[in-house]
């Protein structure tokens, strides 16, 4: 039976303070992404694409509304539970790879497994497999400074999938890459979605990148223009 890891954003309001102003990013936003989908979130800067991604990954909390992953509501989890939940269920790929420069590719990929009960041998085996999946086996002992941008991003993807999360959240994963390398990375994400059933949500400005997704959500036409509301005004 297919496990349920649908992503549901229900009546999401998200606003933040900027000086004396309250900036509303999302107002009564609703979205459902089904388990196994590859969704691209598009739209111009400032519409809150990354904010949605952060809400789905439990990196940020909505001002109001519910974030439900599968059957688990995560917006009201305490920080410790949320951290653990994130380690078990979510893999992140950011525009900047954020690999630790003091660790080799193998070490970087093994890093999330330090939180699991796996022993050293098992951790090494898992990391080697993840690197193999992204085509980086031969570079396992190289440090980030010895890798190209595309290779670093592959290692970052390996790190995101090594603990076998159900959901991959990718924030502009090809933003820093040339077209050819970007296509390779996108093909890799497609493969992870198709062959391993990973649910992928990708934020991108790039229409060609969005073409790899099974569904494209354009926030520009989706809901509203962001607006500024004075402090104290009711939404």
């Amino acid at each position, binding site marked *: 039976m297919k496990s349920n890891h649908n992503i549901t954003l229900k009546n999401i309001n998200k606003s933040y303070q900027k000086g004396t102003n309250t900036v509303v990013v999302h107002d009564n936003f609703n979205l459902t992404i089904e388990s196994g989908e590859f969704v691209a979130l598009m739209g111009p800067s400032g519409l809150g694409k990354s904010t949605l991604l952060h809400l789905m*990954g439990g990196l940020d909390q909505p001002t109001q509304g519910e974030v439900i992953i599968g059957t688990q509501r995560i917006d009201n989890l305490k920080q410790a539970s949320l951290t653990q939940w994130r380690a078990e269920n979510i893999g992140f790929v950011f525009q900047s790879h954020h690999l630790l420069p003091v660790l080799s590719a193998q070490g970087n990929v093994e890093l999330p497994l330090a939180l699991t009960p796996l022993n050293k041998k098992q951790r090494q085996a898992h990391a080697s497999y993840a690197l193999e999946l992204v085509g980086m086996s031969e570079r396992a002992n190289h440090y980030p400074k010895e890798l190209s941008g595309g290779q670093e991003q592959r290692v970052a993807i390996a790190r995101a999938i090594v603990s076998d999360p159900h959901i991959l959240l990718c924030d502009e994963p090809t933003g820093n890459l040339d077209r050819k390398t970007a296509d390779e990375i996108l093909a890799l994400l497609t493969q992870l979605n198709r062959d391993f059933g990973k649910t992928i949500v990708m934020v991108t400005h790039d229409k060609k990148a969005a073409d790899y997704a099974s569904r494209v959500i354009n926030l520009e036409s989706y809901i509203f223009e962001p607006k500024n509301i004075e402090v104290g005004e009711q939404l």
Partner: protein
Amino acid sequence: MNLLILVWRNSFRKKVRFGLTCTSVMVAFFLFTTLSGVNHALTSSVSNSNQYRLMTSHKISLTQSLPINYKQKISALPGVKKVSYASWFGGFYQNEKNQLPVTAVDHETYFDLFDEYHIPTEQLTQWKNTRTGIVIGQSLADKYGWKIGDKVPLSSSIWMNKSGSFNWSFTVSAIYQTADHSGTNNKVFFQHAYFDKGRAYARNSMSWLSTEITDKANVDDVIVAIDKLFIHTNSPTRTTTEQVFIKERAQQFVDMAMVINLVVIAVFFTLLLIVCNTMIQTIRERNNESAMMKALGFSSLSLIQGVYLESLLLLGLGAFFGSLLAYLLIAVVGQNFNDFLPGISIAPNHYLTVFALVNIAAAFCSAFPAVAIKRLVISETLGGQA
């Protein structure tokens, strides 16, 4: 991937910064350990022998002389076993760079009281029978190649002899050794009688008296009795235990204990600022990585533990090498200054203090980065602009 390996590698990421900060920690603990060695000498408990030995000097200053006949008067007091006396000669060999701790002592009694100097009986007898004889330490004999029977000219910058010269002639009559082979092996003793008759002024006086009390006598009572004996004379006395006497002699120059405490406080305050600043800077530079690790599922606590371990490593390495250097220095200083301030050594519990200080400092230096890590908002740090 072991998190300890990550801590280790992160520590050596900026090698120059780590090296410089570690050096500052090393200097701080070097000073702390060295000064604690001196402090140990000033505050250490009295040994068996000097618990029962009292030192009596002029009430005003050690430089003021006392009449030699005080010996007989003190000997008559109840609880007194033996009394001897001595005078500081100063002295140097050939030139003033070769300073020697030369003391004129009552040859009849001195080595009965100070039995820690081991002198062969026949040599001691020979010395007692030789007016110009000196007893020298083994290390001094080794250093200058002096043998029994050698004529040795020594000079004093204080005492002129009757012929108007500051040069005095001596003959090596005995060589002593001490059980611990420490720096006390470099002293020179000669007969007070020769000194008294030979000097141009201040005859029939001496610098201090040493009194050994009986096992049953009360130290405080004897001290009071001695000082009471001379209270209304031209030369009132001040009597203390030998240990206190030695400490006071050292503290004539400066209140060492106070200086030590001030230096230690200043050094550690500066050290904390330096290491704190380093750790804050280090963690600020790694903000993105910390946020990424939090996104991967690492708790704030585990990241803070990492920072604590890094601080601990930095401080621990500095403290280890600083203490090691101080240990080596103290070993050398202990050899050369033991006569001036005996007991210069590092007490074993000092290392426990160092251990505790390193841990406390590591915790303190991790506090600010810990707050920063705790407050780190992943979405804002890694946050996309989209």
